């Protein structure tokens, strides 16, 4: 009998690669699992088979639904055995198989029996298994036992119940919240880990009640928490409380600081470190408060344990960004870490030193780094480069030695990301330090002479085209650029041609020579290169068009490239030339990448499939293919889908609002989720009595809507041209329903007319606003001018916090936040947010919002609008005033 487990002593010493699982095969193991059904169970053998099954799962093997169900049912038989070891394995494999709801029922009674058993191990594990696989309905049945288990004498049982409670709180909060009293009792437990688990659960139960958390924390910081892990939790909770109660600065005394400082003398390293880190992260921490934390971190720096050194140097590195002076005391310890075996530690040490170093120590440091650079990985080098860049910006006088360093390492071997970091740094230094410009540009020129990365070459050529002509002697760069035309691939050649043209446009004395060079490019083998050369020769040669030329060469393109690309692909060669103004300017919203894996329990087929990504051109294509809507003109905007039904109802319907200049089209995406039904002649009856300015003009029914294949029906309205009319619409889905025989899939001939009430839908002001960003808000704002500016102040009333108020206004206006101003730093009392967009009628709108919290929660807002049209500026104010 081939039982690898029993072969132990046969090939004991001769094979190095011996594994008890050699040649293991899923099919054979599944066969072996039949021993679970034997009337006389052999516990040892059953354990071995379970181990093999777990081994397969652990190696990434998957079981089909049928296989998993079969194994699961066989495993449930093993509850008959009273063998402890086997039972442990049964618990583990049940968790791994994560049975479906109807399968769970089979083991429920066995597990509930174990839950009330006298054996501690049974109770603890049965709780963990049952809570992991159960759903809410069962929970009420076992709640009583769980509450008992929380205060069980045996710490393992108590911990099992508490940890399960933490997991269950995510799905069944209302039940777990009822256990507060028991959990509170468990916080006082003498067993360290029970205390930790109880504290974690208690805090999560109360986390939305700030007062209760405050009370919990202040009572515990006075008492004695025994477990180091629980103490770490407590430190985290206190820093959260401190962060949220921002009104302490006037007295100078920070609540709980004494507690944190006391924790620095705890005997467990994890607590000391947690406290030190918490102190360094306090809002507006003073150097007096920092000192004791820095002192313990400094001790960690010379520890024999790499983990401690790493933790300390990483924290100090962060402190160095805000309080470089506080960290300078550690510089000597830090310098000895440059040669640390662990490269992560060495890199962190170096970058910390670069941040805390003063002007006089720069040269010495650079010497140390040069020897260090050669033996670290690219990703660490990038970190070092970034540190050097900020150092150079801090000490501009040192730019010569730092720039030299950068150009030296630029010449050495390295991957793309690394080279890109260096080039980016040089570019930034050139931009910010005028004295560094000429030498920096020459370094870049030398680099492209021998650069294997097309992307970097073209970036540098582009940059040269902008900065080069402004230098004292632009002619010296021409040679480097023209060399590219001879030696590189087509992409770089085309870039070089554009750069040459820029020199020609900016520097009159060079123009004749540039002409000669460009003419040579007319014989290039590549179309793009020839085309560019021809174009530039023509435009540069024309008289009086210098300003146009400059705009063309240096101006920015305010159209998203993706949109342009798609429009060009859709353009069919014809008499009419391509019009760049027809390209939609709306920034396409990237659908968020799905990070979370699908939930453990599949939702079944009930849920509607996710709506297709709302790309405006897909809609445009769809709408223009419908003759009724073809004459509505250019599509201005399509909204994101709005759900009109609850999840998991018989019919799932959502709506997309398409806005045209004089029309609005509602696109209803319908899904039929009943397999036994076929819907025909589906329409939506819209009642527009609460939308006075709209009049229905057309509707396009959906002929047939079979099970689970989405279809669309449309209703079109006319509205006053160019006017942002708003209104409410109520919707009724009307259709003829036909029974479908599930076995044959054929529908009966006779159908019944039926209706289905949908939720209301609103057309709001934001529907008339396109999200269009601007690259430089201040420039755009200045160039728009104050002619049509409207400023007013609003009281937004009590709000949870500033971020919520900012979001509410952004959503109300439907505009594009610029320069990351939609993000509000936590605890700030005031904030400025910049928005841009295009209003219906193609009117550019810029908005500056200034928020301030006054009083406890009252948010006030100053709204300044600039646009090309006074009426539009007023309209924006009206939206806010009525919203």
């Amino acid at each position: 009998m081939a039982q690898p487990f029993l072969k132990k002593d046969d090939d004991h010493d001769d094979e190095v690669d011996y594994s008890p699982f050699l040649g293991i095969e899923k099919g054979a193991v599944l066969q072996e699992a039949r021993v679970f059904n034997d009337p006389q169970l052999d516990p040892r053998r059953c354990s071995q088979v379970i181990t093999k099954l777990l081994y397969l799962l652990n190696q990434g093997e998957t079981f089909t639904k049928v296989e998993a169900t079969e194994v699961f049912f066989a495993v449930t038989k093993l509850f008959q055995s009273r063998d402890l070891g086997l039972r442990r394995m049964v618990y583990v494999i049940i968790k791994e198989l994560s049975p479906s709801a109807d399968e769970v029922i089979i083991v429920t009674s066995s597990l509930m029996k174990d839950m009330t058993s006298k054996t501690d191990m049974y109770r603890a594990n049965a709780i963990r298994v049952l809570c992991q696989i159960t759903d809410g309905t069962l929970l009420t049945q076992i709640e009583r036992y769980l509450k008992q288990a929380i205060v069980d004498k045996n710490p393992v049982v108590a911990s099992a119940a508490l940890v399960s409670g933490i997991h269950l709180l995510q799905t069944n909060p209302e039940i777990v919240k009822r256990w507060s009293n028991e959990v509170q009792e468990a916080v006082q437990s003498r067993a360290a880990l029970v205390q930790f688990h109880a504290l974690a659960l208690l805090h999560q139960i109360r986390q939305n009640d700030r007062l209760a958390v405050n009370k919990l924390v202040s009572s515990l910081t006075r008492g004695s928490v025994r477990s180091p892990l629980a103490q770490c939790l407590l430190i985290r909770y206190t820093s959260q409380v401190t962060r949220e109660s921002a009104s302490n600065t006037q007295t100078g005394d920070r609540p709980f600081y004494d507690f944190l400082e006391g924790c620095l003398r705890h005997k467990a390293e994890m607590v000391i470190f947690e406290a030190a880190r918490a102190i360094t992260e306090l809002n507006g921490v003073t150097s007096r408060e920092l000192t004791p934390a820095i002192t313990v971190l400094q001790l960690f720096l010379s520890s024999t344990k790499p983990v401690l050194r790493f933790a300390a140097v990483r924290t100090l590195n962060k402190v160095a960004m805000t309080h470089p002076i506080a960290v300078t005391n550690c510089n000597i310890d830090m310098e000895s870490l440059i040669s640390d075996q662990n490269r992560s530690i060495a890199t962190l040490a170096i970058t910390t030193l670069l941040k805390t170093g003063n002007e006089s120590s720069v040269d010495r440091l650079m010497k140390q780094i040069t020897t260090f650079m050669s033996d670290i990985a690219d990703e660490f080098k990038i970190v070092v480069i970034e540190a050097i860049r900020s150092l150079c910006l801090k000490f501009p006088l040192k730019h010569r030695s730092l720039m030299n360093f950068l150009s030296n390492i630029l010449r050495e071997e390295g991957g793309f990301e690394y080279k890109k970091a260096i080039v980016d740094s040089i570019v930034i230094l050139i931009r910010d330090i005028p004295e560094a410009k000429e030498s920096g540009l020459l370094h870049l020129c030398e680099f492209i002479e021998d650069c294997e990365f097309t992307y970097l070459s073209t970036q540098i050529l582009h940059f040269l085209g902008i900065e080069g002509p402004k230098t004292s002697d632009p002619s010296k760069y021409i040679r480097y650029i023209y060399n590219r035309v001879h030696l590189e691939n087509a992409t770089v050649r085309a870039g070089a041609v554009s750069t040459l043209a820029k020199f020609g446009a900016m520097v009159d004395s060079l123009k004749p020579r540039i002409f000669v060079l460009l003419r040579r490019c007319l014989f290039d083998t590549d179309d793009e290169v020839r085309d560019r050369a021809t174009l530039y020769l023509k435009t540069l040669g024309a008289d009086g068009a210098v300003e146009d030329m400059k705009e063309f060469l240096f101006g920015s393109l305010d159209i998203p490239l993706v949109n342009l690309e798609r429009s060009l692909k859709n353009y069919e060669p014809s008499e009419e030339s391509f019009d760049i103004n027809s390209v939609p300017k709306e920034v396409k919203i990237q659908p968020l990448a799905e990070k979370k894996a699908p939930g453990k329990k599949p939702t079944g087929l009930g849920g509607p499939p996710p709506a297709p990504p709302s790309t405006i051109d897909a809609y445009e294509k769809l709408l223009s293919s419908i003759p009724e809507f073809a004459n509505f003109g250019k599509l201005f905007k399509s909204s994101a889908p709005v759900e009109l039904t609850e999840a998991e109802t018989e019919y799932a319907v959502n709506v997309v609002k398409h806005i045209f200049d004089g029309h609005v089209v509602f696109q209803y995406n319908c899904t039929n989720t009943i397999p036994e039904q076929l819907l025909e002649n589906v329409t939506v009856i819209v009642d527009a009595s609460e939308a006075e300015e709209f009049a229905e003009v057309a509707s396009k029914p959906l002929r047939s809507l079979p099970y689970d294949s989405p279809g669309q029906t449309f209703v079109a309205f006319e509205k006053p041209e160019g006017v942002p009319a708003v209104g409410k619409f109520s919707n009724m889905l009307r259709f003829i329903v036909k029974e479908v025989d599930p076995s044959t899939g054929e529908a009966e001939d006779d159908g019944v007319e039926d209706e289905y009430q949908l939720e209301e839908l609103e057309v709001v002001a934001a529907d008339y606003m396109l999200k269009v960003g601007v690259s430089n808000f201040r420039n755009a704002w200045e160039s728009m001018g104050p002619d049509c500016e409207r400023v007013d102040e609003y009281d937004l009333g009590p709000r949870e916090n500033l971020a919520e108020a900012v979001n509410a206004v952004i959503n109300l206006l439907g505009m594009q936040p610029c320069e990351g101003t939609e993000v509000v730093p936590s605890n700030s009392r005031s904030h400025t947010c910049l928005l841009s967009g295009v209003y219906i009628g193609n009117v550019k709108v810029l908005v500056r919002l200034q928020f301030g919290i006054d009083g406890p929660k009252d948010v006030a807002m100053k709204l300044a609008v600039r646009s090309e049209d006074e009426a539009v500026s007023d309209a924006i104010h009206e939206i806010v005033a009525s919203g």
Partner: protein
Amino acid sequence: MELCPTIKNILLLDSEGKRIAVKYYSDDWPTNAAKEAFEKAVFTKTQKTNARTEAEITMFDNYIVVYKFVQDLHFFVTGGENENEIILATVLQGFFDAVGLLLRGTEDKKEALENLDLILLCLDEIVDGSIILETDANVIAGKVDSHSMDAGAPLSEQTITQALATAREHLTRSLLK
């Protein structure tokens, strides 16, 4: 911010980076391919370091990984970038020492695979769905080993190896008490 210390995964790999036993507690790696890619990255990154006397640490892709090696066994514990490094190291040490106790000093791949059931139970006792259950190696090993003996099988039906194993288990059990 995650307030409760969170473990993303625990890995036990061999000297070629192949899996012996792994357990993931986070959705960051939804597929087996993603998991294997992570393991490969971790292994290649740490392979050349000397993590035999003290636990070592590295950081990449916004994860903190602490690790320790013995013979051809490579132990790893991963946490998020804001996790307390020392807490992660404590979990690693608990796992490492518990496996040492369970394998009774002969810590190598062969022994680990032969006692894979114990290692899997050990993982089950250390972390429950990303929350730390226990970090004390003696307690972990005690919980795993205290009942791995099967009392039912008559001695005559066991092979010599089995009998020896049973005897050894008896011995360790009494030692661990």
